[in-house]
């Protein structure tokens, strides 16, 4: 896992695709220092993967990496993980 995180971005995306195709979940990452907990992302998630209690948390099992939350976050607090 640690080695995977060191991969350059492009390779990381390939790895992500590979992993998700093989039933392993990757998910969006919440940057906690930016997330205010406003929950604007929560209703937009088609997979109900987001819960917010002071800060957003993304359920890795449910997240399908669609990236909607990244676009809807007013604080640029969610990134592709």
């Amino acid at each position, binding site marked *: 896992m640690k080695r995977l995180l060191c991969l350059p971005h492009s390779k990381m995306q390939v790895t992500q695709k590979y992993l998700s195709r093989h039933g392993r979940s990757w998910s969006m990452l919440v940057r906690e220092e930016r997330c*205010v*907990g*406003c*929950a604007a992302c*929560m209703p937009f998630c088609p997979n109900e993967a987001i819960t*917010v209690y002071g*800060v957003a948390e993304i359920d890795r099992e449910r997240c399908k990496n669609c990236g909607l939350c990244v676009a809807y976050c*007013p604080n640029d607090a969610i990134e592709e993980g």
Partner: protein
Amino acid sequence: MRACVIGAGLGGLLAAANLAKEGFEVEVYEKLPYAGGRFTNLDYRGYQLSTGALHMIPHRERGPLGRMLRQLGAGVEIIPSQPQAMFRIAGKDYEYEELPSLFSLRDKLKITKIIAMLKLGKATSDESYRSWLEKQIKNELVFKIADSFTGWSLSLKASEVPAKEVIAQTKNINKLGGPGIPVGGCGGVTRALVEVLQSEGGELYLKQKVIAIKQNGRAFEVVAKEKRSYDIVVSNAGPKITAELAQEILPREYARAVSRIKGAAGIKISVACKKAMLGHSGVLFTPEAERINGINEVTNADPSLAPQGEHLLMSHQRLAEGADVKREIELGLKDLHRLFPEFKKYCRVLAVQVYRNSWPVNRAPSGTHLSPATPVEGLYLVGDAVKPEGWMETDGIAAGVEEALRHIRAGY
């Protein structure tokens, strides 16, 4: 004349719609995929949550926002809250006029005097509302009532607001009346404003983040996906971000001054209820709650804000700077259970939303009175950091837009 509006929040949309109506060629840039900023609906399982504001307008159809919406021809119906407000004290709900009856004879006289002073408007120094009150009376319940009012409407404690500001606000409440519920919630207003803007030929670009405001002679150059030229720029991005975007043209002292402004923070809890818990469309102030300042149940005015037969209740509490957010939420939830003994039976928490830092309740606390005009001619600010004295919440935003428009008309 070409006008650029940065940010499609309430202030940006109001300014844009007005300018378009006055003949400006208006283009609005919004970085998010939706318009409305902190003033629109979030549809969650049929419940209309909001991105920020409560579905409530402080002075119903009679305040600056109601007036402006009417002038723009935006078809928004605002239902007056009935009653305007109640205060829950020792388990019972009282109207504002009934409050003096809760106190001893001596305090009753003092409170009657305070109410009269609030009506007549007398505070000249810069003292806080709390210390102004302390000069008239020493009674903990009075201070709690004051904190619940300022907490609900401004996300501040009475000790954090100038007395002058509260007195000016109370005058406006006495003159124009209390709140109202816009039909369709915040989102109903936002939708109507976008329609006005577009029918007047204005453009709204979503998912377009502005990265710089520059100047070329007297003309402005706004850099987003591409660079475009405008005669005026109205920024709804907040003073801090605006100063960063326009760092090449704004004086450094101005940027430094606005960077010191600390916004007001708060927590909103939205609750789905199987039956009406308040049963009215006004505000319930909760002075004796640990954290919650007030609650409303907008479905008593507009049932469409929740699935049929259900109700939507929202509580608001001020969030102190540096407080432990999770603990504050916990205390808010405990308050709800205490205020409504049947909470467990009929209610379900839909969302807990915190507003702070880059997405606050207000980008500048009430009483700041930042001018919509910046040191650069042709560059103006609108939004919740630019509220003239005496105007709170969304009516403050509309009053700030009015002031910005006066500056713009004087310049062109």
